[in-house]
């Protein structure tokens, strides 16, 4: 049993003009994660504390928040790895809805506009059988398909902070994932989000997204490779105007 000071950024849109920190003394078990400490506060100290969580096993991507200034999944952040004073804030670079809950409308719109789903090269009926894919074809995009939309990469990205119109790491990495899928033929349909100025070209390769990604998606790599492809497509469209 270890007692920690949990500083939580609170904001109630109905009563507060701006966020404020509230400190809770939380007795923690050795194997607790930060999310357990927050649940303890909600269950035993202040039931009005508002936050998102679901799976408690780094799969759902709901419980992302800033812990001591770094974006992490709070279900994956073990108390034993932190000092006695732990400061919890809502994900950076997003507006605060209430307490630790952020407004994610911007991300959701960008994700939807990026068309992160297979747009088949050729429509096949069920009778024609399944779409086949070799292990090598799978390897071309598998790592980028691990994204759980937790938005930690957006909270880490200074370019998203400075230019909110930036499509951002996760949406671009997912676009790249579907562009590289051998079953897919939708690259041209995704280019309006991917290759525009606010797409891959807004990225200055800070690399923070890949550092904080809990699923090792490496969005920075997807975006760099996307720049290469986008630059090639740009020159192709000049040299071979009929290819578009």
């Amino acid at each position, binding site marked *: 049993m270890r007692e920690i000071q949990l500083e939580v950024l609170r904001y109630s849109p109905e009563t507060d003009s701006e966020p404020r920190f509230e400190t809770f003394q939380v007795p923690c078990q050795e194997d607790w994660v930060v999310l357990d400490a927050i649940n303890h506060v909600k269950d035993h100290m202040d039931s009005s504390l508002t936050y998102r969580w679901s799976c408690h096993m780094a799969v759902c991507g709901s419980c992302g928040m800033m812990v001591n200034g770094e974006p992490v999944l709070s279900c994956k952040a073990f108390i034993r790895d932190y000092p006695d004073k732990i400061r919890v804030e809502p994900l950076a670079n997003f507006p605060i809805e209430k307490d630790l809950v952020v407004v994610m409308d911007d991300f959701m719109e960008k994700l939807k506009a990026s068309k992160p789903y297979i747009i088949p090269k050729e429509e096949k009926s069920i009778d024609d059988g399944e779409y086949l894919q070799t292990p090598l074809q799978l390897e071309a995009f598998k790592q980028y398909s691990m994204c759980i939309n937790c938005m930690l990469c957006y909270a880490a990205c200074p370019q998203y902070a*400075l*230019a909110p119109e930036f499509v951002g790491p996760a949406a671009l990495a997912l676009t790249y994932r579907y562009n590289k899928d051998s079953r897919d033929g939708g690259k041209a349909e995704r280019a309006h989000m991917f*290759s*525009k*100025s606010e797409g891959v*070209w807004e990225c200055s390769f800070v690399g923070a997204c890949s550092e904080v990604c809990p699923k090792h998606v490496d969005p920075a790599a997807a975006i760099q490779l996307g720049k290469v492809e*986008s630059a090639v497509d*740009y020159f192709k469209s000049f040299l071979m105007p009929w290819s578009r």
Partner: protein
Amino acid sequence: MAVHSHKALIWLPFAAGGMLAAFVLPIMIVLTTGFLFPGALSYERAYAFADNWIGKLILLGVILLPMWHAAHRLRITAHDFGIHNDAAVRWACYVLAGVGSVLTVVFLLAI
């Protein structure tokens, strides 16, 4: 075509120049300081190097590519430092690099 940003055009020289700068700039600086082979950059030798097409082409590459790399990076970095007037910064960086390019070509041909 409309969907593609023109940043794609400048990105290839940026990447090529960054790569070239990473490999050759440190050793070039060591040579121009004269710490190693101080006599190697004498007038006769430098002139002989720049007096043929291979030498001219090499000089063109090592001067222009890193310069365009720097110009593009400076444009991006100005935004990072809080200067958000990209149109003005873009013109300043690229016009300077353009002037440098013209000077390089003109004086390489003059040798």
